[in-house]
């Protein structure tokens, strides 16, 4: 009960401001091919500051590729991705757009954080070191301050008692919570979640969703969730985007997409999804 109350609270406050605000991320006709296979066939998408966006769709529909391009892990084949005032993958030089170099990518991606399906924690570092390394090495924050903030963040995700443990001593759910703390201490304006519960045992999914719910309530940070947790997407997202076959097939509020849409492909996806989940 308390959960639904809190959620409706988040959705109300920033919603009206959000619509007026300039988008923090814009995809303009973005294409991506891997070899001969075109995975994305012209994506147009905007993310507003503080917005919670869920990307759903069958596997292979390109949803993970969308956020991996934003994190600069994949380069688009065509089109533009604008982050703030910068073109993420291109630099204008002598009136021509050229492929961005590492320096440009570093400047632009500083506001973006990501949590991965397989956690990707650094196995040779303790939990605390995993969290501290970003602020200390990248942001040149003092060790004392990074340490203090990392401990706070780890306490927030419920792992304050595991600071000196190594990742291989934790359960999957705990690892994923560390990964979130590690991304959060960098204070990103946009957080990307790439199927963060897909590699977890079913009984560990809840604790991770709980933390995401908690983060979402802080409100200021934009979040993009690639997820198969339909109920969770409905609960937490301001907007849901349904991808199929490399294009955005449907887009709108959770109610519009999950309950009112007449898009046949979406219907069949939701049907398949719900029947395989036993509800």
């Amino acid at each position, binding site marked *: 009960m308390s959960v639904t109350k809190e959620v409706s609270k988040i959705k109300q406050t920033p919603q009206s401001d959000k619509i007026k605000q300039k988008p923090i991320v814009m995809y303009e006709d973005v294409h991506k091919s891997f070899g001969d296979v075109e995975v994305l066939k012209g994506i147009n998408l905007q993310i507003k500051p503080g917005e919670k966006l869920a990307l759903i769709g069958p596997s292979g529909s390109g949803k993970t590729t969308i956020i991996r391009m934003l994190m600069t892990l994949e380069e688009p084949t065509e089109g533009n991705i604008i982050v703030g005032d910068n073109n993420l993958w291109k630099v204008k030089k002598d009136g021509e757009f050229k492929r961005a170099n590492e320096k440009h990518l570093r400047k632009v991606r500083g506001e973006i954080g990501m949590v*991965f399906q397989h956690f990707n924690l650094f*196995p040779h570092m303790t939990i605390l070191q995993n969290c501290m390394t970003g602020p200390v090495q990248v942001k040149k924050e003092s060790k004392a301050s990074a340490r203090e903030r990392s401990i706070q963040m780890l306490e927030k995700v419920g792992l304050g008692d595991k600071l000196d443990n190594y990742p291989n001593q934790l359960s999957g759910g705990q690892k994923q919570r560390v990964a979130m703390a590690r991304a959060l201490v960098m204070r990103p304006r946009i957080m990307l979640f790439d199927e963060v519960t897909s590699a977890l045992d079913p009984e560990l999914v809840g604790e991770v969703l709980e933390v995401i719910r908690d983060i979402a309530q802080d409100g200021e940070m934009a979040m993009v969730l690639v997820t198969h947790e339909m109920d969770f997407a409905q609960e937490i997202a301001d907007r849901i985007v349904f991808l199929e076959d490399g294009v955005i097939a449907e887009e709108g509020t959770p109610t519009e997409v999950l309950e009112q849409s007449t898009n046949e492909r979406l219907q069949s996806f939701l049907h398949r999804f719900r029947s395989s989940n036993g509800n």
Partner: protein
Amino acid sequence: MEIFPVLLKGINVTLIVLVLSAILAYLIAFIAGFGRLSNVWIIRKFTGFYIEIFRGTSLIVQLFWFFYAIPMLFNVNLGNELMAGVLAISLNYGAYMSEIVRGSIIAVDKGQTEAAIALNMTRFQRMRYVILPQAVRMMLPEFGNYLIQILKATSLVSLIGMTDILYHGNILRSTNLAMAPTIYLLILVFYFILALPLIFLTRKMESISKKGVAQS
């Protein structure tokens, strides 16, 4: 029996050649290993050429090249037999071990690089704080194995007149052929005793390397 004290005189030289060759070989292994992974075409090709030449030819012949041929051909003085011996051994084993360096760096899971990019680390930081600490753990057991091999290879420097264990044994044998079996048995024992701590070191490294690596 005076074999033992005579052989003992050679231990100094064997150890000096071992230590210098090992240090230089590891250094070369890292330089060539990174060279093979370079973004620059010419560096990649050049290190690849070096590695194939030194892996594809015999160490004894390389040793003779450094000691006899190169000084004569190019009129460069490599200093002395120690320089020639250490250079040949370290360039040879450096070539082999550079493949371990390269292979270990590649073997670190791609997700590690991606997580480091997500934290906005520079290329150097990614290598220094994320990839290399894990890659080195993978290198350690193989590095230990090669250290034992380098020890055994040091016996070749007796062929360019360095007074190591084998050299002293050979001198002894040439004065008293009947003692040959005893002499060479003792030489084997000498090398084995020197190798023992290295074998234990390798085991230790293996146990270290089992912890803290994300492999793809």
